[in-house]
């Protein structure tokens, strides 16, 4: 198969970028999208040009490192599939394919198709956990959890933190990401003590990093490679409302740590 690629190239975070056209020739339909890019890069290196930088790691759809806006769709045309699991047989020979990085104020570009997603980590640091010191846990079976709750928690916990929800959202909002985490713990007894605080702190952290707000477009759910439901956003909204009406405090986020990287 042969393809015409238009790829965003940008030397670094401050340089000006542009779309550059490349030919992808003799591509096997069994290749994954990333293997197709590997092949293009191999040719670029042959010609003494710098390869296209893109993020990837596990290549089995679980680490959340790969990204890419492919023809205007986060992770490409196949639903519930990460870019690394998208195969070229889903395209037609001769297709024109436009490849762009995730675009969001909170995701500055590092190079070409690579963006900085640490804002998602900062949200997690604001409360994406149950505070439990190592060694202080009671026996695992001492608190039964209804199977339905455990299953619901699992469905939310499947988030791989790739940022496709942000990329696909017309508002570049990370609400589905936040909701997936808050909902996981909201469905488990272990998550209850910090439930209100978590909802408020994680939302405040999301706002701090310049993500947009949710206006219920639901593009996030459609783009999510794990198919995480916007139902969890409703649950987050509910938790947030309850927190706002009860005891939890606003504005308690500690300042971001400042240290040399």
């Amino acid at each position, binding site marked *: 198969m042969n393809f015409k690629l*238009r790829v*965003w190239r940008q030397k670094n975070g401050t340089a000006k970028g542009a*779309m550059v056209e490349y030919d992808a020739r003799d591509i096997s339909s069994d290749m994954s999208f990333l293997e197709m890019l590997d092949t293009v890069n191999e040719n670029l290196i042959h010609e003494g040009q710098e390869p296209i930088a893109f993020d990837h790691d596990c290549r089995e759809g679980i680490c959340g490192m790969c990204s890419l*806006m492919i*023809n*205007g*769709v986060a992770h490409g045309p196949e639903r519930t599939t990460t870019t690394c699991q998208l195969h070229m047989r889903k395209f037609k020979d001769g297709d024109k394919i*436009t490849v*762009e990085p995730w*675009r*969001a*104020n*909170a995701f500055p570009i590092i190079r070409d198709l690579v963006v900085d997603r640490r804002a998602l980590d900062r949200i997690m640091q604001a409360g994406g956990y149950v505070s439990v010191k190592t060694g202080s846990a009671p026996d695992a079976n001492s608190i039964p959890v209804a199977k339905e709750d455990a299953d619901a928690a699992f469905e939310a916990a499947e988030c791989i933190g790739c940022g496709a929800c942000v990329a*696909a959202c*017309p*508002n*570049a*909002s990370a*609400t589905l990401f936040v909701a997936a985490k808050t909902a996981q713990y909201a469905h488990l007894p272990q998550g209850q003590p910090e439930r209100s605080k978590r909802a*408020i702190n994680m*939302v*405040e952290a*999301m*706002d701090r990093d*310049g*993500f*947009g*707000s*949710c*206006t*219920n*477009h*639901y*593009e996030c*759910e*459609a*783009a999510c490679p794990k198919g995480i439901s*916007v*139902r969890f*956003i*409703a*649950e*987050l*909204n*509910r*938790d*947030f*409302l309850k927190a*706002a009406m009860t005891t939890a*405090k*606003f*504005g308690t986020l500690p300042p971001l740590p400042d240290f040399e990287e």
Partner: protein
Amino acid sequence: MNRLVGLFSTSIGRKLMMAVTGVLLLGFLVAHMLGNMIVFQGQDALNAYADWLTGHPMLWIARAHLLAFFALHTYLGVRLATENRIARPTRYQHRTRHQASTPASRYMILTGLVVLAFVAYHLAHFTFGAVDPGYPALVDDQGRHDVYGMIVHGFRQPWIVGTYVVAMLLLGTHLIHGARSLFQTLGLNHESFNVIIRVMTLGLVMLIVLGNISIPLFVYFGLPTH
């Protein structure tokens, strides 16, 4: 920190306020539409209703609230739209393929602003008489302000009818996303009820839009007006 300030300073807090003001405005729209329907009972009924309303001791309190909700809703909407634009300073070059959102959801700010402009026009038209300076002076034979007369007079002109119809359709688009959305925002999303929510919100919005549109159309085409 003050709880209200806290609510105001977070995106979801503002969204909740958006939903709450939205519900209240929606309630007003329903009441307004039902009040409008009295026009079909004729001049006397409508003018009597208008007279009762303007003389009601709660009128100004209600108007003040309405104005406050409307202003808050507008402010939040504009702020939301601005912030969301800033959240993605560089657009995608390839047209993004929408998989779930609807034109209604994507053009909320546009439809919202058009409705805002329409409200201004509507008030100028019927409340302040700015469009036709003769309106405030119109009285019926019982000496009441002749609201019925204004309507009949106003909707004889095709461009006014056109404006009202278009505005109501855009309001409908705004409401269809808003009404559905507020359930989600208030945390009411369950697969068992989502279909019911969709059908009921659609019904309500159609009722408001069709009810309101029917007046200029009926007047213009000269259908039963007693």
